[in-house]
């Protein structure tokens, strides 16, 4: 198969960047999208040009590192698929394919198709955890959890942190990412003690990072490679509202760290 690629090239964060055209030929249909990019990079190196920088690691759809906007769609045309799981058999011979990085104020481009997603980590650091130290714990069967609840928590927890939700959102909102973590922990009995404080802290961090707000476009759900439902955004909004009513305004009585 032959393709015309238009690839975003940007030297570093300060560079303006531009789309560069490349021809690529004799690609097997069994080739994955990233393997096609590997072949392009081999070609570029052989021609003494700099290869296209792109993030990828596990190449099996779980690490969340790959991040390409393909013909305007984060992770390309297939549902529930990361870029690394996309295969060239899903394209037509002779297609022109445009490849760009995630576009968001909160995800600055590092180089070519590589972006800085540390804003996601900072949202998690603000509260995406249950405060427990390592050491002896009670037997988990002492707190039964309905299988449906555990499954729903897992539906949210399977987020791979790739950022496609942000790239797909016209507002650049990170609501799906944030709500997935809030819902995962908020659904489980272990997550209850910090439930309302967690949602406050994570939402505030999300806003501080420069992500936009949710307008229910639901583009995030459509782009999510793990098909995480926007119902979790609704859950997060409810928890957020409850938290504003529940949390004491005067926090002097609380211990902030233990």
């Amino acid at each position, binding site marked *: 198969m032959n393709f015309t690629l238009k690839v975003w090239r940007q030297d*570093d964060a300060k560079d303006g960047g531009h789309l560069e055209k490349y021809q690529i030929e004799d690609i*097997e249909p069994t*080739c*994955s999208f990233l*393997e*096609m990019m*590997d072949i392009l*990079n*081999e070609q*570029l*190196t*052989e021609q*003494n040009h*700099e*290869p296209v920088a792109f*993030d990828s*690691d*596990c*190449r*099996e759809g*779980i*690490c969340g590192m790959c991040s390409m906007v393909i013909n305007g769609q984060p992770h390309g045309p*297939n549902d*529930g*698929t990361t870029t690394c*799981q996309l*295969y060239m058999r899903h394209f037509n011979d002779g297609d022109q394919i445009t490849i760009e990085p995630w576009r968001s104020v909160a995800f600055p481009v*590092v180089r070519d198709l590589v972006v*800085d*997603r*540390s804003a996601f*980590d900072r949202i*998690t*650091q*603000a*509260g*995406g*955890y*249950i405060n*427990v130290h*390592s*050491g*002896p*714990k009670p037997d*988990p069967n002492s707190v*039964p*959890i*309905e*299988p449906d609840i*555990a*499954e729903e*928590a*897992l539906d949210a*927890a*399977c987020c*791979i*942190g790739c950022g496609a939700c942000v790239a797909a959102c016209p507002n650049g909102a990170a609501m799906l990412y944030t709500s997935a973590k809030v819902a995962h922990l908020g659904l*489980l009995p*272990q997550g209850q003690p910090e439930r309302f404080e967690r949602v406050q802290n994570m939402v505030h961090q999300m806003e501080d990072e420069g992500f936009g707000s949710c307008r229910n476009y639901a583009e995030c759900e459509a782009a999510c490679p793990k098909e995480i439902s926007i119902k979790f955004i609704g859950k997060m909004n409810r928890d957020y509202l409850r938290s504003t009513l529940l949390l004491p305004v005067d926090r002097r009585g609380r211990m902030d*760290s233990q």
Partner: protein
Amino acid sequence: MDLDPKIPEAPIESMWDTHKEHMRLVGPRNRPNYKVIVVGTGLAGASAASSMAAMGYQVDAFCFQDSPRRAHSIAAQGGINASKDYRNDGDSTYRLFYDTQKGGDYRSREANVWRLAQLSTDIIDQAVAQGVPFAREYGGMLANRSFGGVLVERTFYCRGETGQQLLLGACSALANQIHAGGVTLHARKELLDVVVIDDRARGIVTRDLVTGAIESHAADAVVLATGGYSNVYYLSTNAKGCNVTATWRAHKRGAGFANPCYNQIHPTCIPVAGEHQAKLTLMSESLRNDGRIWVPRKPADQRNPADIPEADRYYYLEERYPRFGNLVPRDVASRNAKEVCDEKLGVGPSGLGVYLDFRDAIQDKGKTVIGGRYENLFTMYEKITGDNPWQSPMRIFPAPHYTMGGLWVDYNLMSNLSGLFAIGEANFSDHGANRLGASSMMQCLADGYFIIPLTIGDYLSRYPYGDVDTSHPAFADAEREVKGRMDHLMSIQGSETVESLHRELGRVMWDKCGIARNADGLQEALKKIPEIRDRFWNDLRITGSGQKLNQTLEHAGRLADFLEFSELMCRDALARDESCGCHFRDEHQTEEGEALRDDDNFSHVSVWEHQGTDKEPIMHKEPLSFEALPLAQRNYKT
């Protein structure tokens, strides 16, 4: 080389508890004065860094990815073992110890394996407390599944995403500690050297992958949690970035490398599709619970698998191993797949594949039950291959997956280099010559949550804190060496690419040091590797600059180390003139084609000492003793 394993004097059942009771401690007020570097943020690294920071130590955590959560532990699918005995099927610490020791073909250190079995139950408790959503039964109790090489059900799981959930648990604890100030995270920074001062590991030198800056970091101890070296084969189930650099650099600075030839070839992976292939994808071993493995009885049978009648199907594992059937250990399953393909019974375009068939399971148990267990794996398979496992059997073939060898460590998980610890897949200690399924995550988390936080204190308490900083000349020397190597790589300006040379090394290793090895092949590999290495250093082409994000340069640095390490791997495989577990020497097999150990001559850990470039390394031996479980021929047939 001092290889005292420091096994405590106590009966094996109470060894760890006795050891804990007699360990030296660092008091809570003193802990913040000590700094520990943890390299790698997978299950072992993230659990270790967060646990130590929660105790009060200052921790600097490093990963080469953009976020700790990307570490390849995330891709572990099937589950994690724990001897909880929730199924009432007679499980116990002893049984888990027994299975691991037997599965490893009696080539691991008993004391470490016992401790691993003992800590397994605490890991589940810890993970659940962190919010890991393990599968539950209708009554709300934790569910279990069975796994290869074992006759009890002790594996805990979250669909096919257990590694992801456990890693997110560990990384959430890490995030908590980053927020609290106990951990400083250094993402997109790769370790390129270990700094040793007065025979103690005192820091590391890293390269900032975005700016190219070479930086020094000093500490009171260094913990390597940098995973395994399966990417020496180029094609493996590891992530593209997985590499041997950290452990190899430590080895070159004096740390012993143990059992490099022990590497596991996982039986259930998706076969290679073509030349372009960049990596292999594993399908969880849990599939073998319900899937039946077979090949056509007639060579080159081109019929559609559904049209092949029962009589023409060769369920070779069920026929050869009636008791364990499709659930034999990984090494046995892989070797059998290779054998039937060598007999030209293999399926698929390359002939390098066997069927994994769910037809009978779907008939017997129904679509709902099978879907509940494997739906995401079926979807993943379909995504990659375009075939639907609900309708036609999967095709699978073995692929390099896990490396049991690694840095030599004592009972405290410290290498022979004082202050240099190795945990998780990066060390050698618990899986012998073959790792059983669902036990890698168990080991990573036992090391990270429960062992290193205590043993590090025992070490640190013996020394004053903060007596060395990066102004010490040893750091400047190491930085100069690292810069020199980077500049050299950029200056070659030859014609061959890193990918093509890596692929070539991989083919040599797969052919000569893969599922089966023999002396002639290994000798041949030992001739070929230096040739590839010469071409690498004389004819490599890297474009761009070393002062910016340059992924080719990153890969080249890792390949440079693989090109040295691979030679040690072959040397070790040659020296171990017996078969054991995954190390199968053609010369040593039973009449039935099983691995034949030579316990009189090889009941030891092979520990290699670096002698300098172009000098042959020296092998030392740590003898193994078998007191809790006497040696026996491994038998999965009766």
